[in-house]
């Protein structure tokens, strides 16, 4: 009997020790269990909401609650929730909201405003929401706005910083592609070609996009035979999956097989 009493006491002590966890630790524990369920499922969103009830300043959980709505086309539910995350931790999530404005809403101006805000939130640091510098994202936004001058300027800033700090092979390869497109649109074909060459250099010479744009330039320059060879290669690259695309949404300036086929037909 005495032993049994000791056992119960030990269990009680263990439970009371557990209950001494801070609010954040308890919220994190609930959150970690909740995200075992598929994103957006009833149990997942309920658990994440519970975590935010335990600690309303737990920004990761507050943000995560917005994500399923973002991916499912429910902007009126995504926006208030992501705004709450930004209230909790602006330096962490404002750039991230900009990234979402860019890709899920194609609202380039709102995206730029959020990326610009990160400059003042973290003045001594270049933020990198979703793994890329805000300068890279701003380059894409300005390309979307057809403001090629600013697009090139931000890609220059991003690429030069990356080269200086880590080396050219660390540059996100689509930065060369997009900077090339911006030059292409301003009819600066020499600079455009240099960028498409860089894209190919760092993609093991496999990029339907770079070859397609190069072929377009060659056509303008009257180099039809070279354009024909390139467009055949571009079609081949496309067919084996080497073209610019992204998950969830269409990427900016995404090319399609019919674009390539139409161009080839026009060359003949």
């Amino acid at each position, binding site marked *: 009997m005495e032993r049994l009493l000791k056992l119960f006491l030990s269990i009680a002590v263990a439970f009371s020790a557990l209950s001494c966890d801070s609010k954040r630790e308890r919220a994190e524990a*609930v959150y970690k269990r909740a995200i075992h369920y598929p994103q957006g499922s009833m149990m997942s969103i309920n658990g994440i909401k519970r975590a935010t009830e335990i600690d309303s300043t737990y920004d990761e959980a507050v943000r995560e609650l917005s994500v399923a709505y973002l991916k*499912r*086309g429910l902007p009126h539910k995504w926006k208030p929730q992501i705004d709450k995350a930004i209230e909790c931790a602006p330096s962490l999530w404002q750039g991230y909201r900009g990234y979402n404005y860019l890709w899920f*809403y194609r609202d380039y101006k709102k995206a730029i405003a959020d990326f610009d805000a990160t400059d003042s939130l973290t003045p001594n640091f270049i933020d990198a929401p979703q793994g890329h510098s805000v300068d890279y994202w701003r380059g894409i936004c300005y390309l979307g706005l057809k403001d090629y001058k600013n697009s090139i300027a931000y890609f220059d800033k991003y690429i030069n910083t990356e080269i200086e700090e880590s080396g050219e092979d660390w540059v996100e390869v689509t930065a060369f592609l997009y900077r090339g497109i911006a030059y292409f649109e301003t009819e600066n074909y020499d600079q455009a070609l240099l960028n498409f060459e860089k894209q190919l250099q760092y993609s093991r010479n496999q990029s339907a996009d770079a070859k397609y744009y190069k072929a377009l330039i060659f056509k303008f320059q009257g180099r039809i035979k070279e354009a024909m060879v390139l467009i055949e290669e571009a079609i081949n690259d496309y067919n084996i999956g080497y073209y610019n695309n992204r*998950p969830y949404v269409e990427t900016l300036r995404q090319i*399609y097989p019919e674009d390539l086929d139409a161009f080839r037909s026009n060359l003949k």
Partner: protein
Amino acid sequence: MRTKKVFKILGIILGLIVITIGCFIGYGYYMFNSSLMPEHEPFEHASHYIDPETALLNENFKVCDENYIAQYYNTQELPYPNGKNRFRNYINLAYVNNNYSDSGYLNIRFIVNCEGEVGRFVIHENNLDLEPTTFNENLKKQLFKLTSEAKGWKPTVLWEENRDSYMYVSYRIENGEITEIIP
């Protein structure tokens, strides 16, 4: 006497095992169910749920597996009929801006079933600041008709099988003009 004692010990052991298993199951249920329920206004459905009772064009629409409906992005290729580019061209050619002044996102959510048929539609109307609004009825009808009548949606393929999936098309509209089709 000795046999009785053995049975008694076995009974105690068995009892303890049953209690332990019961506690384990109860603890697991608490941890992965009850403890995850919010105290205020718990969600009654998944985030993507579309109520079949109130959905548009749900009569005669069948999903192949009501218990498992995937998301459009579970496979790499977007499920638009004949690809996104051709879908965009189809919409842009057919849509007529009848002097609409509306701006915002007209989002149409629905299910693409495992046979590529679409149904169970719901429409969300938001302004460019992503706040609920109301679009011109004629504009809304036009885009709903074009979207729901498009044929050839691609079912999501998972584990080498065609699956039902949730899909949405978001029309970004500025002064009545479609400026983007997302995703």
